[in-house]
């Protein structure tokens, strides 16, 4: 790697030159996030300029190889870039389940042809992906899924229903777990890739207790999924009937992602923030202090985890612990935010609360310990894989 300090100053210069001032403001709402895709449009010129500069530099996926649209940075360089972006408060130029989830799976399991095509499309924000894992009735128990793909030689005919597919109504393609062997519980699932524009695919948004949500139900009705999209580009990742390996790998990755952000706005003291809104009742203040002890400690744990990850230290099941602790902490944070906000925070639609932002945010966190593996599943995994408890 290059000399860290010279790399850092290089990055600073580049950011100075390329990150518009508007893109250094905190993200306020969904509009401020750029997801890319076929139908994407930019909110304003600054968003466009920032995205395009990053895309051209490979900074939408800085640690991916250059031939797949990344900048080929080392982990240490990647950390410096993140630090420098954080320092000026730069927004992510591109958000995408392709970056967070499919990409890592393809980097690990994909063919060269898949990487060339799909990773570049993701890095350049051309295709927006969504994830098809859960089904109604399967919940934490993913292998009980029912969506079935009938083998028709060069393609499958897929029928079934997925739930909790985020932004399915805005996504271009889906990576989707489909049962291809009814006899074999684990080794009978294939990790398929297909276009949401295919005939027979439809979506329906799910309304949550926090209000409208990015989640959808996705229905597949005789959807034709080709086994190949061209030379060395299979229509599935890994092997046929071995999609569970890919899904497990990806779940682990998802947990890492969630665990790394689990503590929410972590570095700052919650008590300090909330006490600015008004004097805290003494008992609430004590609760805030106890929370801050836990939250600041968790920040250190996240940092330790990320540092160890880069050098392959730490127990491989550790992300489950971070996911558990981080999401439980985030729920507690929002309970306290509600308490500090008092009756004002109860408002659901008022202008003063930007349409019930505090309340909706609080309710939204309740899903943290359900999505991406429930807290109970995390505890099971810790019991079994880390503590090696019998029968776990």
């Amino acid at each position, binding site marked *: 790697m290059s000399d860290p300090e010279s790399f850092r100053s290089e990055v600073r210069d580049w950011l100075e030159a390329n990150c518009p001032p508007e893109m250094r403001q905190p993200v306020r709402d969904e509009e401020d996030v750029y997801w890319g895709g076929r139908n994407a449009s930019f909110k304003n010129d600054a968003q466009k300029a920032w995205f395009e500069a990053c895309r051209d530099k490979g900074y939408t996926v800085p640690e991916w190889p250059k031939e797949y649209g990344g900048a080929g940075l080392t982990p240490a360089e990647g950390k410096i870039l993140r630090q420098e972006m954080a320092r000026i408060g730069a927004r992510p130029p591109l958000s995408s389940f392709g970056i967070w989830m499919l990409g890592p799976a393809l980097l690990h399991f994909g063919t060269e042809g898949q990487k060339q095509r799909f990773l570049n499309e993701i890095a350049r924000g051309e295709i927006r992906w969504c994830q098809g894992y859960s089904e109604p009735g399967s919940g934490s128990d993913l292998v009980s899924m029912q969506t079935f793909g009938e083998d028709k030689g060069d393609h499958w005919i897929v029928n079934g229903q997925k739930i909790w597919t985020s932004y399915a109504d805005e996504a271009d393609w889906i990576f989707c777990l489909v049962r291809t062997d009814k006899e074999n519980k684990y080794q009978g699932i294939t990790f398929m890739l297909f276009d949401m524009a295919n005939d027979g695919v439809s979506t329906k948004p799910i309304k949550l207790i926090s209000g409208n949500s990015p989640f959808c139900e996705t229905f597949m009705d005789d959807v034709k999924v080709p086994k190949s999209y061209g030379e060395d580009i299979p229509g599935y990742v890994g092997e046929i009937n071995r999609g569970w390996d890919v899904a497990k790998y990806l779940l682990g990755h998802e947990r890492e992602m969630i665990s790394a952000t689990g503590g929410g706005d972590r570095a700052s003291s919650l008590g300090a923030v909330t006490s600015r809104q008004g004097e805290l*009742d003494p*008992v609430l203040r004590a609760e805030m202090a106890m929370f801050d002890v836990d939250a600041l400690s968790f920040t250190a744990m996240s940092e330790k985890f990320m540092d160890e990850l880069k050098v392959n230290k730490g127990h491989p099941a550790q992300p489950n612990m971070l996911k558990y602790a981080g999401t439980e902490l985030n729920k507690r944070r929002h309970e306290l935010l509600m308490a500090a906000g008092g009756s004002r925070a109860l408002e*659901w639609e008022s202008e003063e609360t930007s349409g019930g932002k505090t309340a909706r945010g609080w309710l939204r966190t309740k899903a943290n310990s359900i999505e991406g593996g429930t807290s109970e599943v995390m505890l099971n995994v810790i019991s079994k894989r880390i503590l090696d408890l019998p029968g776990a």
Partner: protein
Amino acid sequence: MPLYHDEDQAMLAETAQQFMAEQGAIKDQLRHWRDRNCKDGFGHALWKQFAEMGFTGILVGEDHGGLDMGHVEAGIVLEEIGRNLTPSPFLSSSVLAATALKHGSDDVKGRWLPDMVAGEKVYAVAIDEGPKHRPERIACKAEKSGNGFRLSGKKDFVVYGASAEMIVVAARTSGSDSDEDGLTLFAVPQDANGMSHDSVRLVDSSMASHITFDGVELDGDAVIGEVDGGRAVLNAMLTAGRVGAAAEGVGVARGAMDMTVDYLKQRKQFGKLIGEFQALQHRAAHLYSEVEIARAVTIKAAQLLDGGSEQAELMSSVAKAKVAKAAGLAVREGVQMHGGIGMTDEYDIGLYMKRDRALQEFLGDQYYHANRVAELSGY
């Protein structure tokens, strides 16, 4: 007095349970009015039925058409309200306002109580000034003006304020913001000039007002109780309201718990009913303990209040705080144990979580009341 419902109370409980399950069910009341974006947030027809059942007059003397019962009985009705999440002005009108009016002159009582008992009118109470409950500090001012008063200031979190025919307002007639003395309670009619509502929908789909009093002229007969002697009336009203809110919270907790325990017996994961998983069993059993304890202390507080005990004030805070803890646990465990579908608007468990949150905040949350327990215990 033994700490359980006597025969009459047990009969009332049965009646209330049946009535609320039939008339106050979530789909018929809460969802019905919510989905229609009703500006009242509750159904007037149901309020009429409350009156027909006699519920509205539980705390009102027979002279004014009431049943002259106690807070245990009011709590019985509130527990069923909580269990069914029934939107209703019962707590505001028939507990809080009714308790305040009890301290009024015969004139005041005669003017307001019979219509409320008959289900013709609903009342609200205006206490908080700011997002947190701090009744020790009242800045709203009522200055002498002619034979009456001129009311100025702002009030927040006035539940069902915009729908109320009358609002009980705690205001300062002398002294400074944090003084113990110098408060007076007023019955302010809906059509008072200079009173304006900013009515907002809350997370639980109930409605609450931010009220501005811009020199509202009030007759002398709007005064409830003694001028400058309102603190005692306010305290009585708050104690009654907190015990009532605790009772409703017990209902919310039990409703959420029952729904969750049922779910544990139906939902399968990994080839087993999830209720077979010991980790969930122990959490459910712990929750059961907490809810039972919260219920016991709520009935205790109501009995003490009905018996005129000095301990009632302390125990009302204990009950309010304990119920907040137990009900909070019930709704959090409820949503978590339901998993993904618990997060959807389609399922009722999330509605319990929302109602619990609003109820926790009303008349002081667990932190406020734990602090008050410490203060009343001398530390």
